[in-house]
């Protein structure tokens, strides 16, 4: 039964991905990418990875979609039409890469195999020792915040850096005030003809 749900969700994801490639209306593409995230969140729930599903639903389906819509408001709603030409080289590259990836999966352990290396490395230790060593009933929190505290610090720093980058690039902080006083400064690239 679980596998049927998996297959249905994965099939939906393929359909959504194909629709995203075909559509030229970027608003629809953004909405579909939100749906894609929500489908993968559902897939994670089926796999009992509720923490990941939660993050995917909140960040992927929620915030990313809103930020993409914000970007669309600043750019354009339609993708500019590209001249149709036969792209044989890219097609060959994609086919070969896809075939290599599928060939690579042949050697991988089966889906959900308890003997897979990933389940035999540190996972048993976390499962056996984390209630004694760390405490919280949610082992994901133990791993995320305690065993892998350095990684999470790095992730937080990445988010901080992203925020700073957007502020600097999109004229937060002081540069905005300067622009307001001098609207014809070289930094203002609004692309609008001013009255």
């Amino acid at each position: 039964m679980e596998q049927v749900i998996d297959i249905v969700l994965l099939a939906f994801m393929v359909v959504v991905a194909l629709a995203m490639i075909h559509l030229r209306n970027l608003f629809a593409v953004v909405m579909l990418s939100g749906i894609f995230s929500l489908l993968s969140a559902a897939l994670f729930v089926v796999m009992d990875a509720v923490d990941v599903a939660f993050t995917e639903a909140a960040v992927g389906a929620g915030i990313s979609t809103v930020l993409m819509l914000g970007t669309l408001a600043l750019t354009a709603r339609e993708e500019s039409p590209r001249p149709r030409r036969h792209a044989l080289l890219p097609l060959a590259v994609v086919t070969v890469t896809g075939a290599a990836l599928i060939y690579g999966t042949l050697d991988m352990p089966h889906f959900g195999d308890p003997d897979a290396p990933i389940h035999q490395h540190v996972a048993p230790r976390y499962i056996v020792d984390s209630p004694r060593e760390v405490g919280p009933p949610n082992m994901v929190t133990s791993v995320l915040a305690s065993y892998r505290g350095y990684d999470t610090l790095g992730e937080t720093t990445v988010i901080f850096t992203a925020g700073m980058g957007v502020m600097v690039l999109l004229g937060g902080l002081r540069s905005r005030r300067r622009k307001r006083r001098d609207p014809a400064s070289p930094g203002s690239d609004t692309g609008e003809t001013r009255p």
Partner: protein
Amino acid sequence: MRTHSVLRTSTKLLMPPIMLFALYVQFHGDYGPGGGFQAGVIFAVAFILFTLIFGPARARRVAPEWVTTPMCALGVLLYAGVGVATMLLGGTYLDYNMLAHDPHHGQHLGILLVELGVGLTVWAVMVTIFLTFVERHAQREAAADPDAEEDGHA
């Protein structure tokens, strides 16, 4: 948005539960799914919803720049500071056992503080990015049409 009374009223009704749920996700992460990342995002969603309905100018009154900008750094500093504190207490970096006499209490306190740091940074960065985008848009609209109100809610 003045005329959309249904949207305005439902936003006002939705905001407290969203924020309360974010706090629940933040502080209940030890016991159920969730943690700082998810909680920060959900808390930011409340502000984003507010901005969509009431405009960036009023949102900036609730989350002014002098709060959100330092908050981005404060979360990371809180996280890194916990590591420095455990070092000063005689342990290694981010060894929460040092924070209390009982290692379990120390771990609990350490995880709580660290997740709080993550939540603060994620919330502040999400609100900052969104408001920067929206303000930029409002600025452009104002540049294209000088008679229009800049904040969009009037």
